[in-house]
């Protein structure tokens, strides 16, 4: 299914959601927050996976925009630069930042997110993971590797009734790449334009 932002509440029980939004200013984070927001009670905790954007920027966006009871307890930060955990948590929030140093090491990233999902499940909470962004990941690994990661992370989330939102900037990829990632995801929220009907089945 493909919906606009306003239709995100109709995602229902889908597990993997591709969010198409241009990476201009904060629009892409905005779109991810808006999708998670509209899922309301389905999610207890939100876990952003930040790649090019600093965690504190993501967290402050979340605090500003989110209107639900969902809590933001953990952030998985993927970056090989020397941003420290203390710096990442400087916004004064109680959010734990877990680091993955190598953005090409999707095995470690997958395991880290999987651990977060499992811990939340053990506590009786369901998690909405926001991978921000898939466009950044594809800058570090090739498309087939990113595709396998998307599918596998979705399967891990499915086991614990979680959900994963993958942001993709459609202007940064050719149509074929965007279409390939549409196929691997259960639902698509197209925030790059107005609401429109199903695309490509």
């Amino acid at each position, binding site marked *: 299914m493909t919906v606009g932002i306003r239709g995100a509440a109709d995602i229902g029980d889908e597990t993997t959601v591709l969010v198409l939004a241009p990476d201009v200013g904060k629009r892409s984070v905005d779109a991810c927050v808006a999708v998670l927001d509209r899922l309301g009670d389905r999610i207890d905790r939100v876990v952003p996976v930040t790649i090019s954007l600093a965690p504190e920027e993501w967290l402050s966006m979340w605090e500003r925009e989110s209107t639900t009871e969902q809590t933001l307890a953990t952030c998985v930060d993927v970056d*090989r630069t020397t941003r420290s955990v203390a710096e990442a948590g400087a916004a004064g929030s109680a959010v734990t930042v877990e680091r993955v140093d*190598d953005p*090409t*090491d*999707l*095995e470690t990233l*997958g*395991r880290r997110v*999987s651990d977060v*999902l*499992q811990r939340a499940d053990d506590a009786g909470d369901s998690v909405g993971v926001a991978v921000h962004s898939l466009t950044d990941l594809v*800058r*570090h*690994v*090739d498309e*087939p*590797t990113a*595709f*396998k*990661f998307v*599918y*596998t992370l979705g*399967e*891990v989330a499915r*086991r614990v009734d979680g959900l994963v939102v993958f942001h993709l900037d459609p202007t940064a990829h050719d*149509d*074929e*790449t965007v*279409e*390939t990632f*549409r*196929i*691997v995801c259960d639902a698509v929220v197209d925030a790059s334009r107005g609401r429109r009907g199903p695309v*490509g*089945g």
Partner: protein
Amino acid sequence: MGDEIEGRERDGSLYLPSLPPDMASARHLVVVAGAEPAATDALATVLRDDGTVRTAYSADALRESLDAEVDVVLVDSELVDGSIDPLLTDVRTREFDCQICVTTPGPDDAVALDTHVDTVVGREPDAVRQAVHRLAMRARYRERLEEFYDLAERRAALAVGERDQAALDRLDRQLDRHRRGLDDLSEDLGADSVFDAALSPDERTLASRTADEDTSAEGPSGPTSPDDE
């Protein structure tokens, strides 16, 4: 250890541990390589209950036995005098992907390796059989996932190009079937090992897009560690 294996072989019962039906029914191709023909054949006999097995009693024979059909390679740590690293590197760098298991004399014996292997296990037949099942399942998952990507890529190319609806419908049906098969396989893989299964060692530490950057202190082949279970 050798006496223990022979004793268990006579007993026979330990060679048939209870396995999930989906694991037991799946067939795979394994190469068992060890310097001791009797012990190697004994392991091969155990593994033939679940799949097709080739045996190799030397490094050269192992190299000759490899092809794209092989799912799992079982290499004894004492197959060659000295380090087995060059041999493992040779296996790992073949153009086809397979799961590599190193067997050691005892279950807790450490083996120093620079090459990434998928698991290290003692020679005890029950443990080896379980390890091979697990690795074969990972091999199937990776293979199916790669097929799934190929189908998705074809479908995407067709969708953005000339839209042949009949071909799109056909690909959609194939994608659905593949997805169902993958869902079942991933159910059987634990969350700890599903990412190992999904990504080949090259993909796990892919440096091709960032060749000018230092990818990892552990080197391009990644760390060697026992399978996490």
